[in-house]
Structures are given as structure tokens and as C-alpha cells.
């Protein structure tokens, strides 16, 4: 190396997104495609006629509130991590995880409410779709909870702090996405059921 050296802190990279974060966004795109196709199938099927009329379970309102609250808390946790308040971070991630589980239990109760209204999984597709949409979302949410638990464990080991935020950021992105996905599905069902 000659004398003409310039040290730069951030090399000019083609794209400044971390590769793992970018991969997560692509994963989110593929999930979006699954739900986009299912909700458009819902609309197409509805246009065919022979559609069942039913009310959505009231439990969906509570679960929606739970998932929005959990997103807000996790965001707070992210701010805590950025400010190196590690204890607060651990507590907030734990509460978020619990709220995620509460959400899943709530969805299960909502299915019970549907059964009480005589809307079954096996029967008119109008009802089956509600089970498929909420069930598939719950399945993805389960992966989000596993991610949260991973983050919780690494926060216990003080591995998440302002200098090492990649995993936390990915978790926050994924969790916000899952929350937003549910809000989309819920609003969609309110308008189209």
C-alpha cells in the first residue's frame, strides 16, 4: 500500500441493508404472496355466489388489541436495547412473547365462538376461509414467537445491546409484520365476510 491511503468506515456497498435483514424482507414478501392469493381467492369465490352469511367472532377484537399492544411493547423494547437498558429490554421481550401466546389462545377461543355460531371448518367455503386465514396466520405467528424466545434468551445473556442490534431489528420487523398482517386480515374479513 502506498502513502495514498484513505480509510473509510463504511465502504461503499451496493446496498446498505444487512444480507440477513434483506433475506427476511424477501421471506416477508413470500408470506404476503400467500395471503394475497388466499384473500383474492376469497373474493373470487364470493363472486361465485352460494355464500354463507355469518358474524365474525367478537374475540377477534380482543386478539387484535393484544397483537397491536405487543407490537408497541416490542418497539419500546427495541428503543431500550438501543439505549442499552438491558433489564427493561428483557422484560419487554418477555411480555411481548406472553402477549403473542395470549393472542394464539384468543384465536383458539374465537374458533370456538365460530363453532357456537354454527360456522364450521368443514362446510361452506365462506366459513372455511376464516379458519384457513386465521389458522395460517397463527402458524406464522408461532414462528414469530419462537423468534421472540430466541431473542429473549440472547437478551438474558446480554447479547443484545446498542452494538449488536441485527437480531433484535429482524425480530422487531418480523413481529410488526405479523401484527400488521393480522390487522389486514381482520379488516379484510370485516369488509368482505
Amino acid at each position, binding site marked *: 500500500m502506498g502513502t495514498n491511503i484513505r480509510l*473509510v*468506515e463504511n465502504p461503499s456497498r451496493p446496498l446498505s441493508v444487512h444480507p440477513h435483514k434483506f433475506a427476511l424482507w424477501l*421471506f416477508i*414478501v413470500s408470506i404476503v404472496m400467500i395471503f394475497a392469493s*388466499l384473500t383474492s*381467492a376469497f373474493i373470487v*369465490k364470493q363472486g361465485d355466489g352460494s355464500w354463507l352469511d355469518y358474524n365474525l367472532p367478537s374475540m377477534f377484537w380482543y386478539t387484535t388489541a393484544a397483537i397491536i399492544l405487543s407490537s408497541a411493547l416490542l418497539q419500546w423494547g427495541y428503543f431500550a436495547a438501543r439505549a442499552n437498558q438491558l433489564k427493561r429490554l428483557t422484560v419487554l421481550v418477555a411480555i411481548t412473547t406472553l402477549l403473542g401466546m395470549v393472542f394464539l389462545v384468543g384465536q383458539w377461543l374465537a374458533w370456538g365462538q365460530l363453532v357456537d355460531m354454527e360456522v364450521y371448518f368443514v362446510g*361452506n367455503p365462506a366459513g372455511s376461509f376464516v379458519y384457513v386465514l386465521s389458522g395460517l396466520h397463527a402458524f406464522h405467528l408461532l414462528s414469530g414467537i419462537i423468534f421472540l424466545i430466541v431473542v429473549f434468551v440472547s437478551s438474558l445473556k446480554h447479547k443484545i445491546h446498542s452494538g449488536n442490534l441485527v437480531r433484535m431489528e429482524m425480530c422487531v420487523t418480523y413481529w410488526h409484520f405479523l401484527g400488521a398482517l393480522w390487522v389486514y386480515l381482520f379488516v379484510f374479513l370485516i369488509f368482505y365476510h
Partner: protein
Amino acid sequence: MDQHIAETTGYHDEQWHAHGHHKESFVTKYIFSQDHKVIAKQFLITGIFWAIVGGILSSIFRLQLGFPDMSLEWLRPILGGWITDTGKLDPEFYLALVTMHGTIMVFFVLTAGLSGTFANFLIPLQIGARDMASGFLNMLSYWFFFASSVVMLCSFFLKTGPASGGWVVYPPLSALPQAIQGSQGGMTLWLIAMALFIISSLLGGINYITTIINLRTRGMTFTRLPLTIWALFLTAVIGVLSFPVLFSAALLLIFDRSFGTSFYLSDIYIGGEALTNQGGSAILFQHLFWFLGHPEVYIVMLPGLGITSEIIATNSRKPIFGYRAMIGSLLGIAILSFVVWAHHMFVTGMNPFLGSIFMILTLIIAVPSAVKVFNYLATLWKGNIRFTPGMLFSIGLVSFFISGGLTGIFLGNAAIDIPLHDTYFVVAHFHLVMAAASFFGMLAGVYHWFPKMFGRMMDAKLGYIHFWLTFIGVYLVFFPMHYIGIAGFPRRYYSWTNFDVFNSFTDLNTFVSVAALAVMAAQFIFLFNFFYSIFRGRIAPANPWRSNTLEWTTPLHPGHGNWPGAIPTVYRWPYDYSKPGAEEDFIPQYVPFSETMESNLPHENDLIALEKEEESIVIDESKSH
């Protein structure tokens, strides 16, 4: 974690040396390997296995079609109960054969075998990266594909046979186990295998896109990417957008089959008895399926087009004609692929106005396709052509792309499609433009990059024999099918000899079958050449085709990490062949303009100053993460 990231981003040379000292056991090196080159070979070998299986299946049903009176008793040791007491092929097994031939060839050979091999192999090598963005996910991608292969293979050994509702698995045929034997256990295994396959494709696709966007070496801008990378990039994008939709379609089908829902079923009577399923729609499945299914044919086709671009430019010793037009047409094809799916459904009672829209959109695809064809021809025009086996297969691809593409213009018109729908005309069309063309792209790629994969050369003479037999054979198989189709032969039929109207075509069918068997036999020349050359082939020179791209700057047997020293920096596009004034007829991408004063164009001289400035930057890796 940090070390891993630093290594995969490919900026840090120290990390690579550290990595080289890892001890690798046989298992981590060849089986559960995270090295993209090994994973590529795993995809290739598995793809070759499936191609043989798919080819044998087609040989069996061509025997039935070409020689309807022949006794197939000699196949009993293999097929057992699928040969009837009279020595004939079981009609339901015939349907299973065509179904599995389609499934295996489209998904297992031309998607996993083609994209899986060349995306894994070429992306890191040609963009200058140590490995994929995530070697672990890449490894998972292969093993999900392997698991999918095992499940699909198992379905052959069921008593009720593999899935037999066609590779498109339309319900209600595929949804009702009573409908056909193949819709019992075979269909269940088909759905499980495809679910695993979709996971594999998504893991692979996400990795390919991330790698291309994030891990290009210094100077490798998007307008300096080889066209192979552009094609593989867009293939992965199409896959990430369309495979989830197939997953949705398959998921609802699974619920219909195994849980009794009615997404696709309504008003069905079996033996006079009405089924309880009400309110579903079989057409819904077709919409969901073809929203994947049509992009899927471009997932199959684009890698072949990319490989061909690279090989034709290299072996014509000319810059690719219309580099940006090539990228534009790839983009155009990729975008249009998502808005034409209903041209597979003109006979579903679609609103004619909607049909016209899909017809126009379909015909527009002819424009980017023609751009590509003319660019290939213009690249070849007055080139200093070297007919390597890879080059011959690339030219063969262009030929099939033209002759099969022309009939696509017919079939894209609803008015012509309706009488030709599900006839052998369609079979001829898609086998030429998609199947044979992509297959030739794959073979071209294998011949061209074999020296990089295995460090040895394949035998060129055997390659020429393989090419000519296959090229002529494919035309002899599929060209007559156009006439059979225009005469109205429906596809997927077990036998036509019962219909007087089709008797006059028996000879032609026999001819097609003989040609098909000859093509199949010719592939064994390739197989011998391939496996023999892996062990006994002539040792390859470092850059056997005198090519510009980065993969030829690696050692003959690149280790995990690809370049022993620093990754080369890229200064120019990959198509500087026969540049006026240059000493050699090629200037590799890593040669800066400051070293080629004699051949620089005026605007390239201006870039020299920028090069100097770039080189003075030293990247401090420790602070970048």
C-alpha cells in the same frame, strides 16, 4: 455470528484464511456441505437422476402410443401389476406416467436441476463472492429438495400408484380419492412432496436474490453483471412471488382432500349419489394454479436464456448484441409472466372480454422474446464462431425457442386455442419452447462450466454426437405432433386406435415413438461422457473458453471461499470480446481500463481517473459490522 457475517459478505480476506484452516470431514465437505459449489453439484446430480427417471417414464408411454398392439410383458419384472394380464399397460398407470413425467421434468429437473445447479454455482463465482448470503439456508434448500424427491419417489411404490390427475392436478379429479386410483395415497404424497419443494425453492430463491443484491464484489455494478446472473436473479424473483401462490392452492386442496372442506368442490355426483361438498369452485384452483403455473414456465426458461447469452457471446468472440435490451427483455418477460395466466383457461367459460385482455397481454410476450432471438442472431452474425458443444446446444436452444415460440402466437389467440386446446399441438408447442429449449440450456451450461465444476474437460467429439442426435431427434419427435394436434388428437389419451378418424395417424405416432426412443438413447452418450470425464477427462486449463467472467480467475479446484487471495475488483462489463486494438480477443472483467490504453474508447479513458480513486480506498472491515 459476527465472524460468519464478515465471511459471507466477502469483504474480509483474513476471515477466509482463518476459514481455510477448518478441518472438514467427508460429511461436512460432500454431504451436509455449505459450499455453494458442492450444493450446485448435488442439485445437478439429483437433477440428472430425475431426468433419467422422467425420460424412462416418457419412453414407456411412447411405447404404448407408438406401438399399441405391442406386448409389454417384458416390462413386468419392473412394473409388475401395472402390466395387465393381456400384456398391456394399465390405462390408469398410463395416466400416472404422463402425470409424473410432467411433474418430474418441470419441477425436479428444469426448476431444481437447472436453477438449483447454475444459480448456486454461478452466482457467487460470477459476481465475486465468497459464498451465498447464507450457506446454511442454502444447504437446507438442497435437503428440502432431497426430502421432496424421496417422498415423490416413494409414491411410485404405492399399490394405488403415484398421482395421475395430470401435472396440473385439477380438482375434482385430484381431490376425490374415488375418482381415480392415483388420487388416493399417490396424490397425498404428491402434495407433501410439492410442499417440501416449495420450501426448498423459496429458501434457494431468497438466498440467490440476497446474494446478488448484497455481495457483489467491488465494481460489479448491475450494468456489469453477466446476463446469466441477470437471468438467474429474475428467475429467483419470479419464484419468490409465485411459489407461495402454489402453496396456497395446494393447501386448500389438502384441506379438501383430507379434511372434507369444499373450496374446490360443489355439486358432484358419484354413482348417482350427491357428495355433501357444496359451494366450492374448481375454476378457483385453476386460477391459483396457473398464477404459479405460468410464471413457472419462465422459471424454467430464463436460466437457459441467460446461460445461452453468456455462451453465445463467448464463443462468437463478440460482445453480446444489445446488452441492455437483453436485460430489458428479461425484465419484460418476468413482469408479463404474472399477467397472462388465464390463457391456459380459455375453455373454462371465461368472459370473452376478459379472454381478449389475456390474449393481448399474452401476445405482447412475443415482443421481448423476439428481442432476445434477434439479439442472439445479431451476436452470431459475422462472429468468429467456435463450435464447442456448449455453443451448439446454445444455438439449438435459439432454434427451439423460435420454432416453439411461433406456435405460441397461435395458441395465445383464444379463437385458435379453443379448437387446439389439450391437443398434441399444445404438447408440441410447450415441449419445443419450454422443455427442449430449457433442456438444451441446461446441457449447454453443463458442457460450458464442466471445467470449472470438476477441473476437467468433457470430450468434445462425444458432445458433438450427443448434440446432433438430440437436436435432430427432438425435431423429429415434436414436429409431427403439430399435425397430430391439428387433426384433433387430445393429449393424455391412452389409446386412439378405437377411433376410426385417428387410424391414419398410427404410422406417424410410431415414427414419433421411434424418434423419442432414439433421443433417449442418445442421452446415455452424455451420461457416459459426464461421469467418465469427472474422473478421467483431460485436465482443464484455467480459462478454457478464453472467457471474461470472474469464475475463470479462481484456481482450477476452488476451495470454500473461491479465491485464495483477495476477490478481484471488476472494472468493465463482461463482453469485451474482439475489442478493436486489443492484443487478445478478450479482456477479462478484472482488467482495469488503465492497462488497456490501446483499446479504450474515449469515455472509457475518462473512467481511468475514477479507477485510481477507487483503488485508493481501503476498506476497514472491522468497523463495517
